[in-house]
């Protein structure tokens, strides 16, 4: 769960999906499946309610986009594990629900708050994410959005590939 390599300085990919406001991430795999971590099981249930071919279309470096309050509800970890397994490298949203933000930041996922993002993207648009600067470049829209950069601590967490790795480097005896 916390064993992912840190992202490149600039994440280059496509917008693999656009979710709406108050999106409950458990729906990515279906609430029946929120306790599974097995990669094959997760692959079989990922995004089935939205696009049954999603797992075959998505490529490493792709990102997902969310509306306001992305991650609202009672977020479990497996849905983002499932997306990570497919290569999804960042989540860009109008805003994030605090519980989701904290849990996924712990896991080292770059979460970029970029107000206006949902007005500027369509599915499969190319996107470049400079996650340290929270800068999102959208060539098709001819736009660059800038969010609030992560704190120094969160930057370190993402660079380490998650909080557990950073804490081990700092506090292992």
């Amino acid at each position, binding site marked *: 769960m916390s064993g992912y390599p840190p992202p490149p300085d600039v994440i280059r990919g496509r917008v693999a999906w656009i979710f709406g406001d*108050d999106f*409950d991430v*458990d729906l990515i795999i279906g*609430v*029946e499946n*929120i306790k599974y971590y097995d990669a094959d099981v997760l692959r079989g249930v990922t995004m089935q309610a939205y696009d049954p071919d999603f797992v075959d279309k998505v490529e490493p470096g792709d990102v997902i986009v969310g509306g*306001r*309050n992305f991650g*609202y*509800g*009672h977020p479990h970890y497996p849905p983002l594990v499932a997306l990570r397994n497919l290569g999804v490298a960042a989540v860009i949203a109008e*805003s994030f*629900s*605090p*519980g989701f*933000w*904290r*849990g996924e930041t*712990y896991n080292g996922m770059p979460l970029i708050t970029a107000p206006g993002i949902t007005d500027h993207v369509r599915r499969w648009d190319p996107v470049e994410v400079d996650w340290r600067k929270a800068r999102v470049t959208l060539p098709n829209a001819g736009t660059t959005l800038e969010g609030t950069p992560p*704190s*120094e*601590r*969160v930057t370190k967490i993402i660079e380490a590939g998650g*909080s*557990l790795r950073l*804490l*081990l480097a*700092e*506090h*292992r*005896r």
Partner: protein
Amino acid sequence: MPQTITEKILARAGGVDSVRPGQNLPFRPDHMVAYDFPGYTDVMFRQMHEDFGITELAEPERYLVFIDHMLTKGDEKERDIHKVTREWCDFYGVTLHEAEGIGHQVAAELGYATPGRFLIHFDGHVSGLGAFGALGWGVRRDLLEAWVSGQIYLDVPATVRFDLTGEFGPGVDNRDLVHAIIGRLGADGCAHQVMEFGGPGAEAMSIDRRQGLCGMAMFTGAVSAIFNPDGRALDYADAVARSPYEPVASDPDAEYSSRHTFDLSTIEPQVVLPGSARSANTHGVSELDRTEVTKAFIGSCASGRIEDIRDAAALLDGQKVSAGVELNVVPTSAEIHRQAEREGLLDVLRTAGANIHTSSCDFCFGYQKPLQPGEKCISTGVLNISGRMGSTASEIYMGSASTVAASAITGKITDPREVMNR
């Protein structure tokens, strides 16, 4: 510089004179709290010992563990998880409270949450301790950071101020208020901020009501919620405090990101439709069809306190739970259970046909008597996402203890004021 109560508590915990919203700093919580649960504590226990090589704690008194989940099956899995917890606490000299009730309540009763204290937990409902002028913050897996280092990096939150006027009308309480707040401000209305309650309506609110209100903060997007400590909170704290404490309060000219006024006397009973507590699912009970229910539940860290049980007993006194409904009542703690027994409330509920259960978290997360496919439950639990209380093909409606009790009597989701008036 004028400060809010939250900023003052964090400044002390951060060892600095003052903090301002947006700063990211390390803070030293007074207590670092967990309940044992598979995949959480057992993993953290193993990580601390094996991965971090920690064999003793510098300040074990800052750690606090509760056993309040998984207490009702008595099977091997249950015994195993609790055994691991007991052994870990024993090894490190950490205080363990087992089967004394729901930790977010027991922490208050045992004096861990006195005014001015800063507590973290992996579970966000620790925000209920804001009733006492303590700051309780749910940090999910970042609890590990505090457990291995004694401190945790957090962004200082801005504060949203709620000025409460008036008093709750009959059949209306804190549960209706929190859903009315979500209904007006949205499910992210207080995102990444702290809710601070003040004004005459806050001063008139009982401790039980304050706990239930603060404990639901996360559904507005807030990281916590808090009341400035007043006579009620200080009286409670003085009776239970384990050590001297220093109350702090917001300065009159403290800065808030926004202010909202709610007149408690105008709020009507609220019901949340199955799915989540988002505003689109939140309705005044009078707007809704009278949906039939098969289960009714009063309990959880957000309800089940003595005033909730008194409200339910007042409605059920001389009445019967509808033939098609099973009403389960779980006092929030063993202490509350004993008090409700002394007051004769549990006998009233039993006579009406309710089942009374030993205090635990087990109903609220679908572990004890899980809902079956097709069932509809009206609940004071904290969450109504699909599958939360059992089958993903069951549905959970949420409301106050009064609304649950009234609905149990009629067998349909019912405005408690109707039952009171008949």
